[in-house]
């Protein structure tokens, strides 16, 4: 028995039990081998159930379980870090014909993945909330912002926050299609997604890439800076403000 043969039979119920794997009398192991098949499939399906509660609600428990088994067979985990299992789910959903009519599912999966990453991200203390507002204008424009490791931005052509909230928090399902960009922040231990003002996601991406505030503002179409900064400050998102030091 080599482990390649054992593994191949584990994830393919149509394959026979590998040779040399037996019951106590030396007969082929039969349903004894199925214990391992069930353990692998059931435990990984359960990991996906926990990872994607909103997807589960959107497609229904029974459908989700069948879909998760197909996902497990196509994309087994590539690390024992099951807390991050499911990175292939958005692509899997986008290519899974039975959910082709639910075009927003891949983006909802990306949102749920980002929530889980935020939950396990490193802790970081925010700067005092008034520090940014207290800067003279020249310093403000030259400032480079460091963000909390938990911060995630998910951009979508679909109302992903509204759809997420309708299923995670019993808000009504959105009636019309619109684009929503979401920022996830974790001021305590619980990550919270919030809708960003139009164009704010692009602005934040420039800041994340290390551009100073003034450059990021100049490169972004008119948007609600006050609301955006309010979201960042209340979400404990800003962990450092680096000012341009004057050359000696």
């Amino acid at each position, binding site marked *: *028995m*080599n*482990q*390649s043969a*054992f*593994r191949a039979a*584990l994830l393919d119920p149509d394959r026979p039990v590998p040779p*040399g*794997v*037996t*019951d*106590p009398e*030396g*007969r082929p*192991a*039969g*349903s*004894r*081998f199925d*214990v*391992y098949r069930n*353990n*692998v499939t059931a*435990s*990984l399906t359960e*990991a996906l159930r926990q990872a994607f509660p909103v997807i589960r609600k959107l497609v229904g428990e029974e459908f989700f379980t069948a879909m998760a088994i197909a996902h497990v067979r196509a994309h*087994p*985990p*590539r*690390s*024992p*870090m*099951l*807390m991050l299992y499911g990175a292939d789910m958005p692509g899997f959903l986008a290519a899974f014909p039975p959910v082709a009519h639910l075009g927003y599912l891949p983006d909802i999966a990306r949102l749920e993945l980002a929530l889980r990453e935020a*939950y*396990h*991200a*490193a*802790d970081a203390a925010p700067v005092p909330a008034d520090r940014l507002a207290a800067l003279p204008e020249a310093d403000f424009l030259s400032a480079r912002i460091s963000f909390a*490791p*938990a911060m995630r931005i998910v951009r979508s052509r679909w109302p992903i926050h509204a759809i997420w909230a309708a299923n995670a928090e019993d808000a009504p399902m959105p009636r019309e299609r619109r684009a929503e960009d979401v920022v996830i922040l*974790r001021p305590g*231990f*619980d990550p919270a997604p919030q809708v960003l003002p139009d164009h704010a996601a692009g602005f934040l991406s420039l800041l994340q890439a290390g551009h100073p505030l003034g450059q990021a503002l100049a490169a972004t179409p008119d948007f609600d800076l006050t609301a955006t900064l309010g979201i960042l400050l209340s979400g404990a998102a800003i962990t450092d403000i680096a000012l341009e030091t004057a050359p000696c």
Partner: protein
Amino acid sequence: MFDAKTRPDLPAKPGVGYKPQHFTDILENPAPVGWLEVHAENYMGDGGRPLAQLRHLAERFPISVHGVGLSIGGEGPLDPDHLARLKRLCDWLNPASFSEHLAWSTHGAEFLNDLLPLPYTDATLARVVGHIDRVQDAVGRRMLLENPSVYVDFTETNLDEIDFLTEIAARTGCGLLLDVNNVYVSCTNRKTGWNDYIDRFPHHHVGEIHLGGHDAQADDTGAALLIDAHGSEVTDPVWALYDRTIRASGAKPTLIEWDNDVPDWPVLAAEAARAAQILNRVAA
């Protein structure tokens, strides 16, 4: 060969597998639980609530770190990234014990999330010994190796499981984790004697005992097939086997494992109390 350093051991009391839903209950009403065990892989994130809760508990209880993803019985090399994560966790937490399984779970780049069985031969023995040497070197600690629950046999097996485990302990300096429920499950499934297994076990190597619940099924021939499910109370035959174990070995740190359909705290604490009765009777 690992050079065991002096460090505080787990107390010879009952412990439980930590579940986050019991966090407040454990702090307010821990008796008779004297220590906690966590699955290493659940605490390999960078921060957030899991690590904050664990740090809080570690200030109050001895902690055992129990890995479920190292694949010590695997044909391929150990995953260096996973070894580095284990070292980071153990360095940060300084647990009283670190343990893993005689099983494999990774094949190639895939993690299969089950404790899969291996045949017992000279070749697999050499491979497991090499892997345990590597783990103890990389993590910088002595580890305990747990006997598995098995559902199948292998025609190529030509070494006895107890001889296999004893030889591993002798060659690597690792200790053993004796899972009494696994003994009962495996011996039932293999149609061998569980009392005999306990009587022959090298108890001087044992640093920790596990107890847990199992499910009962039947195989294609109608023979009993027990499943190590960790979703119910410890059964009476396993309590009897634990009693026999403690009489043979003396009091040992004893964990109640309950990982699925996790009950309210009083149910779990009652299981720990039952273990405490047996431990106290032997100590008295």
